[in-house]
């Protein structure tokens, strides 16, 4: 009877020898087996919490690349500095003409420390387009993400361990 039932079917060599091990592994994947539990009703509550957060902020914020966010951080710092400086610095100390400003890009300025020193902070603020200033707020909201990204880039020790 048994022979008839198993005719034609085969099993891998040592299947039953490793069955317990494989079942144990599955059991280990169960939450309880790791000693971790979850509060009652947690999964119902977490949905509400996430949806509330999503509804409370505009969705377009995340459609921005790392580079853009880093630029926003730099731009935000410059605007803050500019606002402070305009209030504190006398007009006589502003050396570079506004006309000259149209000849250089903000990227070049950020890369060239000497050129940056020659500029008044008010002029720096003038260099920024309205759209860039709009983005400053977004950059500030993502400060932690930018810091995380930067940390990620410089953690060579972890990379070595990984490979």
């Amino acid at each position, binding site marked *: 009877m048994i022979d008839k039932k198993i005719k034609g079917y085969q099993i891998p060599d040592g299947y039953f020898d490793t069955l317990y091990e494989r079942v144990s592994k599955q059991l280990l994947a169960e939450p309880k087996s790791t*000693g971790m539990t979850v509060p009652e009703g947690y*999964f119902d509550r977490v949905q509400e919490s996430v949806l509330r957060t*999503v509804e409370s902020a505009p969705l377009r914020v995340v459609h921005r690349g790392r580079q853009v966010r880093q630029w926003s951080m730099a731009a935000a710092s410059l605007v803050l500095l500019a606002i402070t400086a305009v209030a504190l610095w006398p007009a006589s100390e502003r050396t570079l003409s506004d006309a000259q400003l149209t000849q250089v890009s903000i990227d070049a300025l950020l890369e060239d420390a000497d050129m940056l020193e020659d500029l008044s902070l008010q002029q720096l603020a003038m260099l920024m387009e309205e759209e860039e200033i709009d983005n400053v707020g977004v950059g500030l909201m993502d400060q932690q993400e930018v810091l995380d990204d930067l940390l990620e880039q410089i953690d060579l020790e*972890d990379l070595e361990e*990984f490979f």
Partner: protein
Amino acid sequence: MAADSTRQQGYKLLMSTYQERLYWHVRRMTQVHEDADDVLQNTFIKVIRGIDRFEGGSKLYTWLYRIATNECLTFLKRRKSRSGVSDGIGIAERLEADEYWDGDEAEVLLQQALDTVPEKQKAVFMLRYYEDMPYRQMSEVLDTSEGALKASYHHAVKKIEAFIKAKEL
């Protein structure tokens, strides 16, 4: 208005379908419920906000795992930098303080061992050991070659074994 409601239903369906799988992945990585909760919520917020960018090039849950794993790695890095280099000891206290932990001594030892493994190796170990994720899929989740993943898994297993053996002596 109707479109918003439909979208909400979609988000709820998405979360209902994947939240438990992602939660346990995140929980195993972060170990403590409170931390897992933060990471899971951030994951879903990013998923929902970025859902338009999902192009269907990979499976949806591969994409979700990718976001969740990145969130975990970022979180663990931050936690490590706050508390100094991990030596596998601090986790015992963290687990002890977690209301949602009821593991025995052996399970604490395993968690301590896992805590000594570098975060990315740990992610590989979790996905392979607990979730049986094929290396090909893991390669998409972690954006790493299959060869490197296999090496990482091997290193993680060796580290865990060495830690447990040292503790048992």
